[in-house]
């Protein structure tokens, strides 16, 4: 059993997101330890991209900060290698397709496997185009996570039937970012997915308070929280560890 599946097997999974290299590599490394200590079950590390079309303003700005600070895929692989000396927590890269494609997808996956990345989330690669990475992921033992959206309709069953690791269920239309209210239509998506797969479902996009995290965790097997954490990093810079830790503990408490 791989680390992702194990993590979901223990309890409702809390999956925080940070953009790698924002504000710098050193803080990202410390953030990973902070998040793990504060109750995260898996951690998503965003590979910064110049033009992230699925991101709202908060993560978009983080991506810009990270690139300006000189973050690259190679530096992120090194970061993960360092992190792996201290923690076994499942780590996923959330990356747009182009940085992987241009790096060379086989070489990218080999580095993922070598560094200790468990899975990949690629928001601009829909199920129909998964062949772009699937073989290289499989060859290197990197789990390719599929996404479902409120608009997936009859596609849910097809995508869910082939899912691995977990299903990333997008809570609402639009891009990443905090939302005051989250639609419960995602419950229907999760239910349809569960008809065809035992792979756990995690809900993301818009979850920004412990209350929302609790609500969504009740509907699914895990919750993904990105922009709310990234906003704290933006506000506090190198001093973000404490507020991020505290916020994450609040999420943990609300989910349990």
């Amino acid at each position, binding site marked *: 059993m791989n680390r992702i599946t194990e993590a979901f097997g223990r309890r409702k999974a809390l999956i925080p997101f940070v953009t790698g290299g924002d504000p710098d590599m050193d803080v990202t490394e410390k953030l990973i330890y902070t998040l793990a200590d504060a109750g995260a079950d898996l951690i998503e590390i965003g590979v910064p*991209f*110049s*033009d992230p*079309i*699925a991101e*709202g*303003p908060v993560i*978009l700005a983080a991506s810009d900060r990270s*690139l300006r600070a000189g973050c*690259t*895929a190679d530096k992120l692989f090194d970061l993960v290698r360092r992190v792996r000396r201290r923690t076994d927590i499942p780590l996923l890269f959330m990356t747009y*397709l*182009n*940085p*992987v*494609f*241009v*790096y060379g997808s086989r070489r990218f996956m080999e580095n993922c496997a070598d560094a200790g990345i468990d899975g990949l989330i690629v*928001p*601009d*690669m*829909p*199920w*129909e*185009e998964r062949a*772009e990475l699937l073989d290289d992921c499989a060859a290197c033992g990197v789990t390719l996570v599929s*996404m*479902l*959206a*409120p*608009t*997936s*309709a009859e*596609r849910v069953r097809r*995508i869910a039937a082939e899912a691995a690791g977990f299903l990333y269920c*997008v809570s609402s*239309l*639009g*891009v990443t970012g905090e939302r005051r209210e989250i639609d419960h239509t995602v419950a229907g998506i999760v239910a349809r997915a569960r008809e065809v797969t035992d792979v756990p479902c995690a809900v993301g996009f818009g979850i920004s308070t412990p209350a929302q995290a609790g609500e969504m965790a009740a509907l699914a097997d895990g919750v993904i929280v990105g922009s709310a954490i990234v906003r704290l990093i933006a506000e506090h810079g190198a001093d973000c560890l404490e507020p991020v830790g505290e916020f994450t503990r609040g999420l943990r408490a609300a989910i349990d």
Partner: protein
Amino acid sequence: MEEGRFGVYGGRYIPETLMSAILELTAAYERWRSEPEFTGELAELLANYAGRPSRLYFARKMTEDLGGAKIYLKREDLNHTGSHKINNVLGQVLLAKKMGKTRVIAETGAGQHGVAAATAAALMDMECEIFMGLEDTERQALNVYRMELLGAKVHRVTTGSMTLKDAVSATMREWASRVADTHYVLGSVMGPHPFPTMVRDFQAVIGREIKEQMQAAEGRLPDVVAACVGGGSNAIGSFYDFIAESGVALVGCEAAGLGVTDPRNAATMANGSVGIFHGMKSYFCQDEYGQIAPVYSISAGLDYPGVGPEHAALLDSGRATYVPVTDAEAVEAFDYLSRREGIIPAVESAHAVAWALRAAPGMARDKIIVVTLSGRGDKDVAAIARYKGVDLHE
């Protein structure tokens, strides 16, 4: 060939949230593209609203001055709204209407596509919102006001380089947030399938007319068809009917800004490499880590770091050639055509004129070049004046 692919290029690399809309659009286009109800209405609009067919004009003075190949100009600048963009938007907005959509959104660079989209939306009673990079709203202030006059809401995009690339990203984000009642009128032969195919089909009227008009004027096909390439819609529209005619050379003129060796250029074919961005696999200006490069051209409409996937395939196969043209050459061509023929071309189109100025003198007098003038240059007058150091503001 696999659906939506041009060789290895094309595809639909977009967030899951947009997949249903893209599949719905693909199905609707397949259904309506050959329905007489649709094709009849579109033909009527193109004729009586857009003013097609556009003229194929023999540039006698230019030809005599250059002393080589005969030069004909395909006058897309004479279309309603002043560019070839109207061909595509009439098709897409009509299709959106058939699909029951009530709102259209679009990106724009120079503003030509935005103006065309706003025009078609006004005509067909659609709500319309346009996304335009802040830098472009400043370069093309008049077009912003023009869109607003037509009833569109213009959003100034302040992310990234604040130009066409960022406007496309912003429009994709907006589409993902409101997809049920909204159609994204993409302005070029780029983005996810079916856009590269659909937009090409709507623009192919340019090349079909060139063929007929050239037969009427000269009783034969031209030797070269040249057009400017940003995303590549007027170029593919001009080329498409000639792809099977191996005797006709196809030349795409891309924006080299300050020169292909200067970082400030937008010459995707000369400097780019294969990547996956904005829904498609194609050539992009990017770094070794796949970060999309900030590009530059005096022409807001060519200031884009990628190119449509069908052009990528035409480059690889060698069926078309792509040449870089600098700002300086484009401005010189802009001046030349204005003074020599009394036609002020869009600065985008001036890139293709510049290639003709370079190539025609070395060709025999019995050779024929067709240059597509994709748009008119009224929108560029202030920017060209500023380029030359004249302090002119709109």
